[in-house]
């Protein structure tokens, strides 16, 4: 069934969009990532104009994250206090990121920068997580106890706060910095930032994996909601018909994903996310390295 999208001005198959939304929704619920880093390239591929894809994707992430958070709230696996601290940093970072983005756009080559950002960050995070999870799985198999959390320099910082749900007593400075960094990257790369936030919470803040997913989804709702409004009012690129089709698939997928995620062990969850991140990274890297079949591309001329 073909549907004409009023803002994107293209006609696409409705079931294809529902399916894409569903698959990305399952991943979103499982890993606590918004799924934007998967969905946005997929939308480009089926012919949605990039500006509309990025803006509409933000709106869809709001829906699947909200659906996911409700499931996590029931299980009490959301650290609202930590989420709020991250969110404060995140919003500040997002605002800063938009400024950086516009500056780079004026310099040209912003597409390349976004792709390089993806390859570098996905590559680093993916390989680190992969290696670490493999080690963890091997340790559990051989019966060794997991290494105790080390006391490092992070625990020496001032403004300590107790995060009861995460079982942490740490300074608010590291979460704030993580929030700002993720916010900047999210604005530049046009995604919720979950795939950076989740590893940062696990490895930098030392939060338990089960709490990480819900907390990440919680703050993604606000960051992407903010982005949606920004896009809708400045670029007019949010396509509500596209968003509805994606999010109907997405919210159902997120519910299924959350249930799958609960059944899996933390190490398995992490290794799956690592593999997925590495696959996307590899695909993007190939695009940059291999000679494209069409050297020319058509873009709208920016208003002067």
């Amino acid at each position, binding site marked *: *069934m*073909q*549907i*004409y999208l*009023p*803002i994107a*001005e*293209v*006609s696409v198959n409705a079931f294809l969009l529902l399916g894409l939304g569903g698959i990305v929704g399952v991943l979103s619920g499982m890993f606590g990532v918004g799924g934007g880093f998967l969905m946005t390239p997929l939308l480009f591929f089926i*012919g949605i104009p990039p500006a509309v894809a990025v803006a509409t994707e933000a*709106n*869809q992430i*709001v*829906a*699947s*994250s*909200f*659906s*996911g958070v*409700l*499931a996590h709230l*029931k299980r009490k696996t959301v650290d609202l206090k930590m989420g709020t601290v991250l969110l404060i940093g995140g919003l500040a970072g997002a605002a800063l990121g938009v400024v950086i983005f516009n500056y780079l756009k004026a310099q040209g*080559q912003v*597409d*390349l920068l976004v792709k390089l950002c993806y390859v570098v960050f996905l590559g680093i995070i993916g390989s680190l997580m992969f290696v670490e999870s493999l080690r963890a799985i091997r340790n559990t198999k051989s019966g060794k106890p997991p290494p105790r959390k080390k006391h490092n320099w992070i625990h020496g910082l001032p403004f300590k706060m107790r995060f009861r749900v995460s079982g942490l007593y740490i300074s608010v400075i590291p979460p704030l910095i993580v929030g700002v960094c993720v916010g900047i990257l999210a604005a530049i790369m046009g995604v919720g930032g979950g795939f950076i936030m989740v590893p940062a919470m696990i490895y930098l803040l030392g939060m338990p994996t089960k709490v990480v997913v819900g907390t990440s989804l919680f703050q993604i709702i606000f960051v992407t*909601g903010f982005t*949606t*409004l920004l*896009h*809708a*009012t*400045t670029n*007019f690129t*949010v396509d*509500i*018909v596209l*968003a*509805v089709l994606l*999010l*109907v698939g997405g*919210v*159902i997928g*997120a*519910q299924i994903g959350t249930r799958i995620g609960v059944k899996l062990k933390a190490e398995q969850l992490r290794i799956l996310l690592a593999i997925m991140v590495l696959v996307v990274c590899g695909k993007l890297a190939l*695009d*940059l*390295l*291999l*000679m*494209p079949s*069409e*050297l*020319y*591309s*058509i*873009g*709208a*001329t*920016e208003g002067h």
Partner: protein
Amino acid sequence: MVRQIFAFLTFVSLSLATLAVADEAVVLGLSKDRVSITTNFDGSEILIFGAIKREDPIPSGDPLQVIVTVAGPSTPITVRRKEKRLGIWVNTDAVEVDQAPSFYAVHSSGPLNEVLKNVEDLRHKISVPRAIRSVGAPSHIADSMSFTEALIRIRKGSEIYQLNENSVVVEEQTLFRTSVRLPAALTEGDYRTRIFLTRGGTVVGQYETTIDVEKVGLERWLYELSRQQPLIYGLMSLAIAIAAGWGASAAFRLLRLS
């Protein structure tokens, strides 16, 4: 002064030429002069047909040929080319094309280079490359033509630009018909439709009309809202997203309880 006289003479001779050929005029019919983009819009087919009205008998000599063009609204676009730099493929050169139609179809009753002389193409901008207006590339790009060629190649590939030779049926040098396929990815606007009559490659008559392409119903409403009340539109999008997220969560809870 000499130039002005020359220009005036050219103008007079051109006017005389059009007067002389005006004895063959087009009477046109369209299967529809308005295309409505609805939610389930999946492209459209327009039948363009007509007759040649003349006071005198059919002139002897070269047979009458018909060319039909349909052009969507034009916008400026940028064509970029990738080059390998430091091992990766990046956009380097860019050429701005001042006016490129968002849709362009040429239908003719014979091979275009036979039914239309080059000089006539230049004057009326009929063929696909002529319909694109490019004022010039930056001086450091030597092969600016290859950018325009790439634009045509890419858009022909997605059927946004079409050249359909031998697709206009002409009967008895009097009746003609063709059907133009509009793709699903259509933008709004006035689609300029031109009919050219040629004999021996020279244009002997022409006619112009517009096909109105516009969004209707829900499509129209959402589009207007997003442009005129962007904040309300954005909040509505968010509200729908939150409601859908909550709805799915509630539905699954019910499913699990039952």
